[in-house]
């Protein structure tokens, strides 16, 4: 049994005041100054914290909103002077896809490295667009599961990037062709570059260091390469955009993976890279525009060994009026690859719209080998996704001032929490290996199917 994948974590508290969902409005007027004021009874001690916060306030751009919404003080105040309110800052976090709930849970995971746990059942919608239109399966009576979660058995989340040949060629008892290089990652996650509108120079070193700590790989644009220690190169993959010259040979040889932008000369560029470093695995980055799906399938017919398909930040087809969602595009590519008997010849990495740990599992079920993420790591640093990141802007997370240790700690915590959650869903499914989950749609239930099989069957008249 290989050594168990374990990420070292420690709690990293937020630098900025917490942005909670609720705040307390206090109509102090008419207060009768009870000596046993209900504010003292808040079991989370929020009123005292708020007072302290205001007393020590240095800048006034953030208010204290961290009440847990239990209504106890509100309902017990002798004069009924307290009232809860929704925090407008909370409600305006993110956007329609990156919802306030996603942002808040990401913050908590980046702080604690823990799997979010809560009581009182599920509070959300029945289903929804995108990844919310699928459920993962569980297995009632059979195997590993909790044992795996608590360490007595091993649930493997590792994946390989590269070609897995269907058979080996031998000539006179000797391997006729070398076995293609594979990059082995302990988790189906690639750390992608930050999108342009959020590209903050100080984040790259943190992402690379996080990759090293978590034994993953971070993609780094070769054009804007930060200073790198040699020891870090194992956890870096250069991204070569179109027209970017070949990287420094010495550095390239220290890396395991390289990503090349799709383009007319992509085959030559892969060759050029392999000339320098034959054991490197080359990934082609394909934007999921209207012909992205076809392009990915087409590339797999050639010599390409790994494809990174990237939707927009919301997981949608890029630039389409009625965009397809990443999960459906992955399913299409995966099916087409199987039909063309190319599925194991190529590794499929999917990015764009992967916002929660569950999306990783679901993308894999839909047919990706692994996913790439960027925004969740940024959100982990208390980002609000408000896009006020320009230098001198009014970034509420003050990302211009972050320290490396904080960033690495928070990003690492988030990845650890995702890993824990991946193990939870796999445990429930009775799965020991994430490699076997790829494309196994039998491990999922899709909203459209269940609706049709259940209510469609029952309520469609005349059928």
């Amino acid at each position: 049994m290989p050594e168990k994948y374990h990420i070292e974590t420690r709690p990293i508290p937020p630098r900025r005041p917490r942005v909670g969902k609720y705040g307390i409005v206090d109509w102090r007027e008419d207060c009768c100054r009870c000596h046993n004021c209900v504010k003292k009874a808040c079991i989370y001690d929020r009123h005292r914290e708020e007072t302290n916060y205001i007393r020590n306030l240095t800048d006034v751009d953030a208010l204290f909103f961290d009440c847990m919404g239990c209504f106890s003080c509100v309902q017990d105040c002798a004069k009924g002077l307290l009232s809860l309110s929704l925090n407008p800052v909370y409600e305006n976090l993110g956007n329609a896809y990156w919802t306030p709930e996603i942002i808040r849970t990401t913050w908590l995971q980046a702080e604690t490295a823990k799997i979010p746990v809560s009581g009182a059942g599920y509070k959300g919608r029945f289903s929804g667009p995108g990844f919310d239109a699928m459920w993962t399966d569980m297995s009632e009576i059979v195997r590993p599961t909790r044992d795996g979660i608590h360490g007595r058995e091993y649930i493997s989340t590792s994946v390989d990037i590269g070609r897995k040949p269907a058979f080996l060629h031998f000539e006179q008892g000797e391997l006729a062709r070398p076995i293609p290089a594979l990059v082995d990652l302990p988790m189906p996650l690639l750390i992608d570059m930050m999108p342009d509108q959020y590209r903050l120079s100080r984040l790259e070193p943190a992402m690379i260091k996080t990759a090293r700590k978590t034994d993953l790989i971070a993609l780094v644009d070769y054009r804007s390469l930060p200073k790198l220690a040699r020891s870090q190169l194992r956890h870096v993959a250069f991204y070569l955009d179109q027209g970017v010259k070949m990287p420094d040979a010495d550095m390239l040889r220290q890396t395991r993976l390289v990503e090349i932008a799709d383009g007319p000369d992509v085959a030559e560029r892969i060759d050029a890279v392999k000339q320098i470093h034959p054991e490197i695995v080359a990934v082609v980055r394909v934007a999921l525009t209207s012909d992205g799906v076809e392009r990915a399938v087409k590339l797999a017919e050639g010599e390409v060994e790994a494809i990174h398909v990237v939707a927009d930040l919301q997981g949608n087809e890029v630039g389409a009026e009625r965009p397809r969602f990443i999960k459906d595009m992955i399913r299409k590519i995966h099916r087409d690859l199987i039909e063309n008997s190319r599925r194991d010849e190529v590794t499929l990495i999917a990015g764009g719209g992967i916002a929660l740990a569950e999306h990783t599992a679901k993308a894999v079920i839909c047919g990706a080998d692994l996913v790439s993420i960027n925004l969740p790591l940024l959100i982990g640093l208390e980002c609000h996704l408000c896009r006020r990141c320009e230098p001198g802007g009014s970034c509420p997370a003050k990302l211009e001032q972050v320290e490396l240790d904080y960033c690495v700690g928070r990003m690492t915590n988030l990845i650890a929490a995702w890993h824990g959650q991946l193990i939870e869903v796999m445990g429930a499914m009775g799965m020991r290996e994430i490699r076997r989950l790829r494309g196994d749609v039998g491990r999922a239930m899709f909203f459209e199917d269940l609706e049709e099989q259940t209510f469609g069957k029952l309520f469609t008249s005349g059928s």
Partner: protein
Amino acid sequence: MANCLHLDPSELETLLPENTLKTRVPQYECDRQVRPAPSRFRNEISKYILLRNENCIHCGKCMTVCQHKVHVTYSGYKLFPKGRYHQCIGPSCAKTDHYCVDLCPQRALQIAENPMIKCLGDFRWPADMILATWIMAQTGEVPSADYGYDYECGDSGGGFDRLRFQFPDNPPADIEGEVDTTLELNRRDDGRPRITIDVPWYGGGMSFGSVSNTTQLAKARAAVAWNTFTCTGEGGYMERLRPYDDHVITQVATGLFGVREETIQRVPIVEFKYAQGAKPGLGGHLLGDKNTVSVARMREAVLGISLFSPFPFHSVYSIEDHMKHIDWIKHVNRRALISTKVSTPTDVDMVAVGSYYAGTHIVHIDGGYGGTGAAPDIAKKNIAMPIEYAIPKVHGFLEAEGVRDAVTLIASGGIRNPYDVAKAIALGADGVVIGTAELVALGCVRCSRCESGRGCPRSIATTDPELAPKMDLEWAQQRIINLYHAWRQELIRILRRLGLRSVGELRGRTDLLMHLDFPPDKTEDIQ
């Protein structure tokens, strides 16, 4: 007092092992009388508030006209204190002849929606549903239509929330006499006792540890009053529950916390918990903080460590193993019925049929969206299918196997109100198990903090020595008794409107339902 066991005491003697009889304590008795049980909080949350401006001359007119006793005053006080706004029926009062806003000679009053209401509730339990449940727990009746509470459905946009009953325009000739809401739990004809409960639901397993003593006892007493059941959950059998033995289902869960032969022999129903909807495939999990001195003693565990009950049963890897388990319990307790609780994977229908053949009396399917205890968010949202899909699936498969009438199908995981009960039954269940609704009746606001730190800030789901005693047992039991009453009354109204005489007649009647996304006549937009 009605007894769900159709046994006379002498029969009990022949069935119960001697040691059980010797240790048997007198059983608690309790009637199902509705009594007012107003909120235990000073300021009940209200949907509307009254604004009174400075023109008020304190003439007291509003107090005399209002029939809902919204306005209050205290002798010796000149000004009006905050009223009982939660009893105000809001703008719909304008239609009546006692609308204080119109009758105030100074026009000093104004009704507004309480801005705080936005902070209450969620997609599955919107504020209206919580407030309506509180009214039911307070009064024993569903809120009158005047309140305008939309509590029949939540806002989740799927499942029960998209299903509606198709009530006939002219309900078939008024059904006279009692509508039968009882449910028979043993359909196997295997010589074991028949057990009939008076309402088609019973209380779900909430272990001591996850909820307080008071909560657990209140549930048990309501079960006695309504001649139904409550379940111990997997935290062991509290001594304090023994006066309720005849209305307790004891759980044998994977952790086997506190399970002893003696506890199994006490009860009429034993439930095997394979999985639970909120965390399917993940087993139970009691966070270390909640493993207090008393919990640790009950579970025979070390204080303060997190308690996991493993998943699955490590002695059960097949239906045959499950059967062995059932045989073991049947042997230990010769009168017990067996319930098998599973969650809802794709093959839930196979699991159900397998359980039937293994000898279970009750198949209990627990969908993913319910649950009360702590569970990973990722599991609650994503793992296993919602109960609305699972019920027809299992019901249909049991029918196809020809065994539907030999087993009782119980559904849980998101049953929030009497309409959900009726919908679940119309989809094919015989009855349901409820959990969250009882907690809401006790004042739960669904803040989801039950798991953390000292537990529930509202004294419901906590064993914290300071927090837990804040809730009074008599009050709590009355709230649940009232809730059950309101639910049953409403269920009867639903059945009458559908022209049915019993809950049993409703089972599987999907023809009485419609789904808003599959309108019966597609040319007609019924939304």
